[in-house]
């Protein structure tokens, strides 16, 4: 079972003030009625209490069920027919400043990312590639093409200074990667996100969710260590913050893991030789699975159950209020 918008469930807390309001209202209603009812007071108040109880209960239940419907519960899976052949891969490469960090290894993070990307281009022969680079903003550098020459030459010339925008925004990067798939290609689609996962703005889980709904897995490769590393500058020295302290950039594999899992793919983190062949295997496996099966599984949304329940309690609420209590009034 999964919940698409778990944050909506916080609105259930709103039921508490609602109940308080109803209670306050009940006491006021009793007072008003006892003033008006005269001789029939006892009978009227009993009926009122019963009716109040059920109508309030049903109204609160209606609110609860609506909120549950909005939260987007889903369980179980159904298959959606999708026969696609071939593979389109978008390589989304982080080129923010933190990718210059070396993490006490021979190569910078970006060089390691480049290495993995180049390996994929070489090992996936009949695949089309597109490249998106991003830091604070994103750019479709190489459009989806079969032309390996230009993909490889762009990759080998890749530097962290290709983007002038500061910061690191995985959300724009993923959005841009997703839009780099041309319309109507009829091929399987995969995004490979190469980054240290360190981000300064944006919510990357939103585009990951969009990707999942369209059947596009986002495989993530985290480069860099969690213990952190300084960022060398091209003009020598290290990157300092405003107060003159040395900036430490820590890789964030947890964020990358979340992105991959949200989109229905796998995350990779570690040394290049450990990461590369499992990643390649996953991508190949994904392609052949889709081609063999001709369908993909999507989670079944269960909002209807809750909407139906909400409708029933609204009807009950109406009934309680409309029908007379025989023989009392």
């Amino acid at each position, binding site marked *: 079972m999964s919940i698409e918008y778990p944050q909506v469930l916080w609105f259930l807390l709103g039921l508490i003030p609602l109940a308080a*309001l109803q209670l306050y*209202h009940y006491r*006021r*209603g009793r007072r*008003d*009625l006892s003033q*008006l*009812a*005269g001789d029939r007071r006892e009978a*009227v108040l009993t009926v*009122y209490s019963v*009716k*109040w109880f059920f*109508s309030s209960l049903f*109204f609160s239940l*209606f*609110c609860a069920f*609506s*909120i549950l*419907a*909005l939260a*987007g519960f889903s369980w179980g899976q159904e298959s959606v027919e999708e026969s696609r052949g071939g593979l389109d891969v978008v390589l989304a490469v982080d080129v923010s400043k933190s990718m210059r960090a070396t993490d006490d290894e021979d190569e910078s993070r970006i060089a390691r990312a480049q290495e993995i990307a180049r390996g994929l281009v070489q090992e996936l022969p*009949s695949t089309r590639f*597109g490249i998106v680079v991003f830091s604070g903003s994103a750019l*479709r550098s*190489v*459009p*989806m*093409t*079969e*032309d*390996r*020459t*230009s*993909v490889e030459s762009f990759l080998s010339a890749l530097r962290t200074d290709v983007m002038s925008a500061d910061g690191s925004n995985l959300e724009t990067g993923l959005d841009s990667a997703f839009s*780099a798939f*041309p*319309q*109507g*290609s*009829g091929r399987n689609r995969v995004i490979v996100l190469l980054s240290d996962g360190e981000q300064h703005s944006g919510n990357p889980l939103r585009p990951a969710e969009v990707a999942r709904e*369209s059947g596009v897995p986002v495989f993530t490769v985290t480069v860099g260590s969690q213990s952190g590393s300084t960022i060398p500058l091209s003009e020598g020295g290290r990157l300092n913050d405003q107060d003159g302290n040395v900036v430490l950039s820590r890789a964030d594999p947890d964020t990358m893991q979340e992105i991959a899992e949200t989109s229905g793919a796998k995350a990779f983190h570690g040394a290049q030789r450990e990461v590369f062949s499992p990643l390649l295997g996953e991508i190949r496996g994904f392609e052949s699975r889709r081609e063999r099966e001709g369908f993909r599984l999507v989670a079944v*949304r269960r*909002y*209807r159950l809750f*909407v*139906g329940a*909400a*409708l029933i309690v*609204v*009807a009950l609420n*109406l009934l309680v*209020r*409309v*029908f*007379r*209590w025989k023989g009392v*009034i």
Partner: protein
Amino acid sequence: MFESPGYLFLLLFVPVGIYFRHFWPGRGGKLPFAFRIWNTRGFNPSFFVRRAVFALAVVSFWLGVVALIAALAGPATVDRERVYLNRGTDMMVILDESPSMAAEDFAPVNRFETARDTIRRFVERRENDSIGLVSFSKEAALRVPPTTDYEKLVDSLDELQIMNLGDGTAIGMGIALGALHLRSSSAPEKVIILLTDGKNNAGEVLPETAARVATELGIRIYTIGIGSESETRIEFENPETGQVYRGTFEGGFDEELLQEIAEFSGGAYFYAGTSGTLESVFEAIDSIETVEKRVRIEVRTESQHRILIIFALAALLFDFFIRKLLLREVL
């Protein structure tokens, strides 16, 4: 569109509900009491305003119920995408960027702008074909690899500037570079469209050699010679220095060479002396290079239930607060 429109029959119960709640003589929730003592003034609130507010609450309640029923029926928007089942043609447009392209014998601006506009319209007419762009003058550069991402292609086309690559006409380099980037293409048909107004006078590769290589890769070359032989006014800005050059220009393209290249590779040669003819040349290439397209329509639905549920919740809460707080209804 609704996923299960059957639920919409529940809407039939709405009028029934409205009748029972508002018109049925036997409905409850009313408590008769003395409104005023005979012949005196009773309390007489502004009845009209209250009725109006009450009506508003009632309307919002029933609209909320309707929205809830609609949400139950699974509302969705449908998106149709044309998916091409076969591979289109791969094309590489090779455009001359030399200063002579600034000659103003092509309406409305000059040869270059006309060529740019014509190529843009040509790209917009094609579907499912990967199209790339190479520009050349003294040297050649790949602007866009062959792609079906036409948005990116047109963007790059718009960024082209005369004399970005120096002064000269390296036709051979242009063809060679175009062929290089078509090499790994798996398309059944590969085509180069060469557009120039000058004679080959730069570059390390001879046009004939480049054409031979391209032919071996199975690429057909269409050559288009543009411009007139007569003296024409010329005006352009050097993109590096920002200096504006004005003058007159005379000299044409190497018709023989273009003819030879086209014939050798199995393409065709065209001459375009005016904007109109250039347009028709591209239309001709467009109609020659058509492959049968097999298309499947892929339907994607996107559920829209959330907005309806939010509306229903808001409407019913609105009704609740109006009646309970504003009108002080006891039940």
